[in-house]
């Protein structure tokens, strides 16, 4: 009688099987990360030539720089708005699609479509829609409300525009997961609630949401990463961080410093800071979700 589960009798296969993954992780994750950490202690001049060791200078400069503080504030506002609104709107849209009885697929495709667009294309489309002089959306809002839309000049408006654009772009991804979660909820619960006379909003809030917490946590993490990193293309195409640096989120600031100003030292320091911010956020989010999340 042999133990049928023991396919491997020796232990050497463990490192062997892990090797390809570990090698790939080393080559493309750990080595560049260590390089970035090393670079962050150097300052180069003249297009990245002749780097000179400066210790923690890059970090000190960032922590005392008003421009970097501004970028941090912008990122916090931007991330809170994008993550919060994407999930709220995404949940509402999914709930509506879930409940609708006819043409469900049409609504679903319409909601998910923006997610299929490359961010750069999405940015270009929204740029035309919201263009202060010729954009269909801007012109109609101006005509209806007598607001003066001029987000190429007004920083606050620009921030609102890129937030709306990022929410629109991120919506489809959320809808896919929300719909999947909603469809997993047993019908019997809905029927029981209906019989008890539970209203739509309460049904969503008190019955569906608690059952969807694993999805909520997952989307919270993914949306945070999205807001921090993947909105780069939208910012780059629509505002380039301006005007008056009002849309200069950390990832954009990092890109400009590293690849336009050739200031690789500061850029690396910023990427290390960004890594710790996002890592800390992840830990907090997962801890919190452990406490409130219901898995199964």
């Amino acid at each position, binding site marked *: 009688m042999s133990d049928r589960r023991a396919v491997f009798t020796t232990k050497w296969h463990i490192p062997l099987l892990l090797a390809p993954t570990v090698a790939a992780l080393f080559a493309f994750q750990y080595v560049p990360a260590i390089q970035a950490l090393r670079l962050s202690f150097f300052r180069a*001049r*003249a*297009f*990245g*030539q*002749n780097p000179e060791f400066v210790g923690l200078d890059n970090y000190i*400069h960032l922590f005392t*720089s*008003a*421009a970097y503080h501004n970028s941090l504030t912008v990122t916090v506002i931007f991330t809170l708005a994008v993550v919060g609104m994407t999930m709220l709107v995404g949940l509402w849209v999914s709930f509506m699609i879930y409940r609708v009885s006819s043409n469900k697929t049409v609504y679903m495709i319409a909601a998910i479509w923006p997610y299929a667009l490359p961010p750069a294309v999405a940015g270009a489309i929204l740029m035309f829609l919201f263009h202060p002089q010729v954009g269909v959306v801007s012109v109609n809002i101006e005509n209806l409300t007598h607001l003066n839309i001029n987000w*190429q*000049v*007004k*920083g606050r408006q620009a921030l609102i525009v890129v937030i709306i654009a990022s929410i629109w772009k991120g919506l489809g991804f959320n809808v896919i997961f929300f719909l999947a979660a909603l469809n997993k909820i047993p019908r019997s619960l809905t029927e029981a609630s209906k019989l008890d006379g539970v209203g739509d909003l309460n049904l969503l809030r008190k019955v569906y949401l608690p059952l969807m917490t694993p999805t909520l946590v997952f989307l919270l993490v993914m949306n945070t990463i999205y807001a921090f990193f993947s909105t780069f293309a939208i910012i780059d195409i629509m505002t*380039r961080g*301006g*005007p*008056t*640096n009002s849309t200069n989120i950390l990832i954009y600031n990092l890109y*400009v*410093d590293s690849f*336009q*100003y*050739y*200031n690789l030292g500061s850029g690396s320091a910023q990427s290390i800071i960004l890594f710790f911010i996002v890592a800390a956020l992840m830990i907090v989010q997962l801890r919190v979700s452990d406490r409130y999340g219901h898995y199964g």
Partner: protein
Amino acid sequence: MRHEVSTRRTVLKSAGAVSALGLAGCIGDDDDDGTDSGDDDDGNGNGDSATVEFWHPLGGDVGEILDEFVTDFNDQSDHTVEHSQQGNYNEVLDATMSAANAGDPPHIAMIGPGMLYGAKESGLFTPVSEIVGDVDYDQFASGLVNFFQIEDEFWAWPLNNSTTINYYNLDIYEEAGLPDPRDDPPTTFEEVGDHAATIVEETDVSNGISFNHHQWFTRQWFALGGQTLFNNENGHEGHPTEINLDNDLATEIWSWWGDLYDEGSYLYPGRRDGQAVNQAFISQEVGIIASSSASIAGLFEGAEDAGFEIASGPYLAPQEERVGQVLGGGALATPSDGYESDAHRAAAAEFLQWMSSPEIQAEWHKQTGYIPMHVDALDLLEEENWFEERPEFSPAVDAMFESEDVPATRNPMVDPFGETMDLLDDVFEFVIDGTPVDEALANGKEDIDSVLGQYS
């Protein structure tokens, strides 16, 4: 300054195509400014032929014109120049830098003027004057020579250079009852501002004037007013530690510009969008624009297609005084490591001298609109009555040949150039967002000085 390249429509069609053979024939064998390598008889020794690699960002029509010139050079020389487009100015620089770090850079790289100081400091480039040998600077336009000189060395060889000029819509001028700008062009802030206001009042045109929100246009005003942008003589007497935004000229520039915007005379095209300015002009949304002289062909063609008449004139200046203007476009720099042999040096030198010779420069100017760098090219063009036939080409050429060689008109020697210039462009964004001019300038100065301090 990519916009100059991308907006250009060639003058080729209007100037008349010049056959490659005819062009080569112009030079003939009396090319006595070539070096010993041009000696046809000597098959060995110094006369060894070499192939020179030349990287540049010129695509489209200008790229094709450049290709014709390079082909002509190769036809008449023992040496060969192989040119290739490598994206935009930044990408050419990136590619050149990585190639130089790997020990195999091109022999000639076209870089933007703002990159010159950084290129020098990188230690990867040799002054082009060392490659060419004796350079007779007197043969070149003063405004071009002093722009690329650092401490008496020529760091880049001018080739495709332009400057800013004004353009007027003559139909709108007539409608507004303003005097013909061809006879009496408005040249100062005050005159141009008055004209713009009159246009808004007297016609249906929504805004009087537009020009690009780009540091190149701002730096022109400092040069015209004779004010250095950076201390230490614009960085020519040591790396600058301060930007000069705390003077009357700076206040005048940003106050006038901000008022122009507030009064509704200025169409704000967005940050660094020269294309939007040209489009607004062609669709007759504005009566006056300032734009690159490299846009002449495109704008004149566009206006003709749209059925209205335009003229060009000198770039608007803060005051009557016009000390000089600064250049845009690219110039040819020489990475050190590319020159394996004397033959390579000789080949590069021959090509550069050939490109800047009077006949070639006259043709180059006619086809591309770039400022001819050779003094004698002007005589050739005048003999052909070029400027009488095409008066729109005069203002930019005049500006660069009349430019005084003072620190204010020199290329600012500053590293990092890109970052300081971005911060300079921020100032106007704050002004039109409601920050008082003095405060915006003080903040801008503080930010830029801190960046300069970090690198000094």
